[in-house]
């Protein structure tokens, strides 16, 4: 006897209301969350604690990068990269790439967008305005997360199946260093001292790298299956996907100082512009969790669409 399957499935009506409040003025920081299962983009007002807009976004969207008026998204299933305008949330440009577009990061200094190709050991460099391909950068196997340093010097990709990070000169796009890290690096980001933090999902730790020299200055133990990293108030925050926790690392000592119990299957993570709040997308729970970056207490949850991932930089400050 199996769990018997229903022979005549009744139609469950979709409950997702498409709110159309795009005309509202932005108040404070806004989070743009890719809902991979629901194939939508949730727009969350973090001050009000509410979802203020939700727009269709086909192709199982996961990757996201936001800057200024630009919202860039990656839909790996449809192999499509899109740019939306923040004010109107209308699509401005779109490109379909031949491969497995996955991670995404934006270089505002040169108006370039970087996309990792999971299948073909490369990054694409796209023109931020037209989304046309300008260059291809050779990486290791299965490049996933990408990051751009705040000083505009470096582009880094986590080459998951080569257990390495590739660091490129952001101006010339030349390969600068290849740094072996832990097992299966996936998400990564630079802190405000331009040090690169890389989450290794196979060894449950974070490698901290000085990009100039390629030296690993610390390997910090975190929880089970680190997915993303963000920074605020002199601390790094790492989502542990299999453990439903967030590890907090002191940026001075590079030691873990606390483990926060979060929502289920925490993935994308980012900080508000004023660094007061860390926001974590919970893939299983269909929420984001807000964490006070000073007290390290959870201050609230906001509902999203189905399967929020928000893999990348997804919060913008006030207009």
């Amino acid at each position, binding site marked *: *006897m*199996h*769990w*018997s*399957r*229903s022979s005549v*499935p*009744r*139609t*469950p*009506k*979709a*409950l997702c*209301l498409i709110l159309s409040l795009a005309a509202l003025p932005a108040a404070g920081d806004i989070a743009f969350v890719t809902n*991979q*299962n*629901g*194939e939508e983009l949730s727009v969350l007002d973090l001050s009000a604690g509410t979802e203020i807009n939700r727009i269709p976004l086909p192709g*199982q969207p*996961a990757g996201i990068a936001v800057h200024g008026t630009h919202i860039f998204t990656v839909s*790996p*299933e449809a192999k499509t990269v899109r740019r939306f305008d923040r004010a109107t949330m209308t699509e401005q440009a779109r490109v379909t790439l031949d491969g*497995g577009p*996955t991670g995404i990061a934006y270089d505002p200094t040169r108006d370039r967008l970087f996309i990792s190709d*999971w*299948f073909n050991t490369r990054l694409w460099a796209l023109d931020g305005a037209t989304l046309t391909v300008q260059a291809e950068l050779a990486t290791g196997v*299965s490049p*996933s997360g990408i990051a751009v340093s705040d000083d505009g010097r470096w582009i880094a990709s986590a080459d998951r*199946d080569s257990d390495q990070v590739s660091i490129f000169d952001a101006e010339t796009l030349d390969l600068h260093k290849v740094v072996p890290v832990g097992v*299966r690096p996936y998400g990564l980001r630079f802190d405000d001292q331009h040090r690169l933090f890389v989450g290794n999902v196979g060894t449950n730790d974070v490698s901290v790298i000085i990009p100039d020299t390629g030296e690993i200055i610390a390997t910090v133990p975190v929880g089970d299956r680190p997915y993303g990293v963000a920074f605020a108030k002199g601390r790094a925050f790492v989502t542990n996907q299999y453990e439903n926790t967030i590890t907090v690392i002191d940026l001075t000592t590079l030691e873990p100082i606390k483990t926060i119990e979060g929502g*289920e*299957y925490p993935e994308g993570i980012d900080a508000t512009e004023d660094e007061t709040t860390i926001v974590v997308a919970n*893939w*299983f*729970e*269909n929420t984001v969790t807000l964490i006070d970056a000073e007290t390290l207490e959870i201050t609230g949850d906001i509902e999203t669409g*189905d*399967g929020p991932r928000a893999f990348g930089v997804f919060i913008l400050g006030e207009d």
Partner: protein
Amino acid sequence: MKRFSILMAVLGFLLPAMAMAHGPTRQKVTLTTEVAAEPAEVWAAIGNFQDMSWHPAVAATNGEGGNELDATRVLSLGAADGPTIAEVLYKFSDEKMSYSYRITDVAVEVLPVTNYSSHLTVKPRDGGGSIVEWRGAFYRGYPNNDPPPELSDEAAINAVTGVYQQGLDALVEKFGAPNS
């Protein structure tokens, strides 16, 4: 059609090739339905972890610990001496009308999943009545690459979708569909 679209939505949700490169990836199924009864009435019927009798496939529920955290239950399927699924409660809220549980023991022949967690909730519906949402996350029954068809991602998704659909259908049967 809706069921088909739900299946399609869950089939390809992870990043490409991760399943190929590194064994199974975590799958997710979310199903919802709408019923005419108000949330409190629906929650009274389904909001007891120790009583799964509202689901047509469950013949008996035997457990310990009520609705406290770490409460356990064993579901007997089809008949009181039928195959079983053992589960543990890890979240419960009367206020939010929701609970979350994990399967601690099930044969893959009964439900072809591993590392399964699930969440059941009742919400108010605009215009009256309730929305019941049931979602689960799990790995397929086969832990390595190249699963046999009966232990594939698709088999796991189909099985969980079938369980949820049957339960939600029973609630529509019991409480009726909303008029508008």
